[in-house]
């Protein structure tokens, strides 16, 4: 007679009275494979922890977003937001799909150029552009989105000095009913500053005004803000044509679309609340199509959405270091992924799953990272099965911001691999070593030796 599989013995208090946070106990389905490739074999080969990016998912998401907009609007262009994830392999998947580059610093600008993006297809955003950056961008015919008057005057000055006609757009901030207002970027719509800036650009005669840009916020769950933003930008475009007969080439609605991650403290999970690309597209394109812009003058619609494009494609796999019981009886599981490489755990309740099939039983658990820091909490309260040392887990939707905002703190940043469309792994960023870090340092001669 074959023996039965043993399940870990469990006893749980039945909460009589106080409503518990958890209704029916819900089983967390394990995730053992990504795109058909076993997570365990990847960890064996590339070490733990490990970032895994699914090329297939990036392309699928991109196509989905592109379809949503281009099926509703005649002229749509996506531009990859470098800051969201500027690993070259990731950028190039987007460029292969047809996305331009959207950068916010000289460093990102150089990265885009090195990736081979033609200068005229780089959008240069943000408040930080040095004079050298601007010169280079002007020479390359890049699209410079002006953030403040100091920059506007510098550009006018440079255009005269260089005898060039810089291609520019004005970044506009506005009240779209979404809070907090991002009024620190660009020129305000409601108080007339944006209109003043446009008049100044037109009066300069040396700047080539191509577009209008706005970016209303981040992780936005309501499509209505985008409708309002599109209407307001369209009204500026109409005013420009009326006053100067000037027809804009493009309107850039920026990004900020929510991904399916769940914000900490949100009642409903992000998978339920995040609007689809179709929802965003409907709000934006219908506002533009029904504006007073003449149909044959409809500008190109540019989108720079980063998070919603890449979050889903990123996974972070790792191993359990230990389990323990806290003073109040709750479970604690310690894993080899800390907040230093999973920055987004500060604002998301990340979806974390076991890799191997485990018991149906789960317990109220806190998941800690490996850092010697009290803030290193990956999930505060989660109904999670008890894993044992060496078991594996995978965290979903980590593609956005983690691989740009991560810190080298106490430990080193791990390998990043990309699974190609056949599920074959490619190492796209090598893990750091002691040498990587030490090679940047210099110890003065008199500090080289000591005796203990």
């Amino acid at each position, binding site marked *: 007679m074959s023996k039965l599989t043993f399940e870990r013995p469990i006893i749980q208090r039945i909460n009589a009275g106080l409503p518990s946070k958890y*209704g029916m106990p819900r089983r967390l389905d394990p995730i053992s494979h990504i795109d058909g490739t076993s997570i365990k074999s990847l960890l064996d080969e590339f070490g733990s922890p490990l970032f895994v990016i699914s090329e297939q998912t990036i392309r699928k998401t991109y196509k989905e977003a592109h379809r949503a907009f281009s099926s509703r609007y005649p002229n749509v262009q996506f531009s990859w937001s470098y800051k969201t994830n500027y690993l070259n392999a990731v950028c190039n998947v987007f460029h292969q799909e047809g996305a331009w580059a959207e950068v916010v610093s000289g460093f990102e600008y150089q990265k885009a150029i090195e990736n081979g993006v033609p200068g005229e297809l780089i959008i240069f955003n943000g408040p930080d552009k040095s004079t050298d950056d601007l010169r280079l961008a002007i020479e390359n015919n890049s699209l410079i989105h002006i953030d403040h008057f100091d920059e506007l005057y510098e550009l006018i000055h440079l255009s005269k000095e260089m005898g060039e006609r810089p291609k520019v757009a004005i970044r506009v901030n506005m009240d779209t009913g979404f809070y907090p207002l991002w009024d620190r970027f660009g020129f305000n719509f409601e108080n007339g500053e944006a209109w003043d800036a446009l008049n100044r650009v037109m009066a300069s005669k040396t700047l080539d005004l191509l577009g209008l840009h706005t970016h209303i916020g981040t992780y936005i769950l309501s499509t209505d803000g985008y409708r309002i933003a599109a209407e307001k930008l369209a009204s500026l475009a109409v005013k420009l044509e009326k006053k100067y007969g000037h027809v804009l080439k493009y309107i850039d609605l920026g990004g900020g679309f929510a991904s399916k991650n769940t914000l900490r403290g949100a009642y409903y999970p992000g998978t339920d609340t995040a609007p689809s690309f179709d929802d965003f597209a409907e709000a934006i394109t219908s506002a533009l199509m029904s504006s007073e812009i003449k149909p044959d003058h409809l500008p190109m619609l540019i989108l720079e959405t980063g998070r919603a494009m890449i979050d889903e494609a990123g996974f972070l796999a790792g191993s359990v270091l230990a389990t323990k019981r806290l003073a109040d009886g709750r479970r604690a599981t310690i894993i080899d992924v800390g907040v230093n490489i999973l920055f987004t755990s500060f604002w998301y309740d990340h979806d974390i799953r076991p890799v191997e099939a485990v018991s149906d039983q789960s317990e109220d658990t806190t998941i800690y990272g490996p850092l010697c820091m009290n803030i290193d909490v990956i999930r505060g309260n989660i109904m999670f099965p008890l894993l044992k040392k060496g078991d594996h887990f995978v965290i979903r939707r980590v593609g956005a911001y983690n691989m740009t905002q991560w810190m080298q703190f106490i430990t080193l940043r791990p390998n990043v691999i990309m699974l190609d469309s056949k599920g074959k792994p490619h190492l796209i960023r090598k893990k750091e070593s002691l040498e990587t870090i030490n090679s940047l340092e210099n110890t003065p001669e008199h500090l080289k030796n000591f005796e203990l």
Partner: protein
Amino acid sequence: MEKIKVNVALSGLNNIDNPGPGIPVIRGLKESKILDVRVIGLSYENLEPGIYMHDLVDKTYKVPYPSDGFEPFLDRIRYIHEQENIQVLIPNFDSELFTVMKSEKILQDMGIRTFLPTLKQFEERHKSNLPEYGEKYGVKVPYSETITSLSDWRRIESKFEYPVVVKGKFYDAHIAYDRDQVSIFFNKIAAKWGLPIVIQEFVRGTEVNVVALGDGKGNTIGAVPMRKTYITDKGKGWGGITLQDQTMMDLTQKIISQTQWRGGMELELIRTSKNELFMIEINPRLPAWVYLAVAAGQNLPEALVLLALGKELKPFSQYEVGKMFIRYSYDMICDMKEFEEFSTRGEV
């Protein structure tokens, strides 16, 4: 006439001192002369009294919280549907509405009907959208502004007169008499429910309510106005009495016809000493005091099920004025065995 047999699943069985609408809705259904209802209770907790009220609830199943997402919720509904063949589903908690609305199509394909407001109607009436709502539909609402910081408040403070009501986006409301109190409540609510915070003009007057049912085509199938005669320290009605009030009825019909409201609703209104009506909130479901409407001659739960089944209904034309309810609590004696069943097997 033979009664129509129908299986109705519903939640809100928490018939405690701050009751959910489940049991009152069931009472309406069980008293129906047209429907023969089998009631399938959906419960989140082991101690929701409805689970143990077998004269009203035929069978109860434990369900996962909507905060787990609609997939786990639907999985469970699928299982229950296999056992019970649910024909109509009535969610009675605000927190469930979003989840059920989002799954409406899938439920329909399974053969489960609902009769709920559309997502647009649901979103539009959120507290933070009240001023736009008032303007759009020509309804008097208290002046309000949305703030995200206390410096926002200092900027707009002069537009208000103290006291003001400080409200969270979803729940919570406090009356503040000065700037210090605004700042206390701002921080308290923001910590719990996040931003933005709504600051609302305080309208002095009597709280009156209407329970109503819209057919989704602009018709008001039924509406009964009521004044709470006594309010508990939790702000809940202890007793209430039906009113004869044409302005309240007109306002209700106006809102339902303009928004094409579908499903049950409760209007929370304030009547000022100048006899003006201000709308404070729209709850997108039948309230816990709906049985008063049944007793006054409008069986709105029954009508809601009939609408869900696709029947054409003639609107109720009258109700009894001066009908009263007094809420009471009652210590029901229960069998430990049933508690054991429900908590270990999730159904009883």
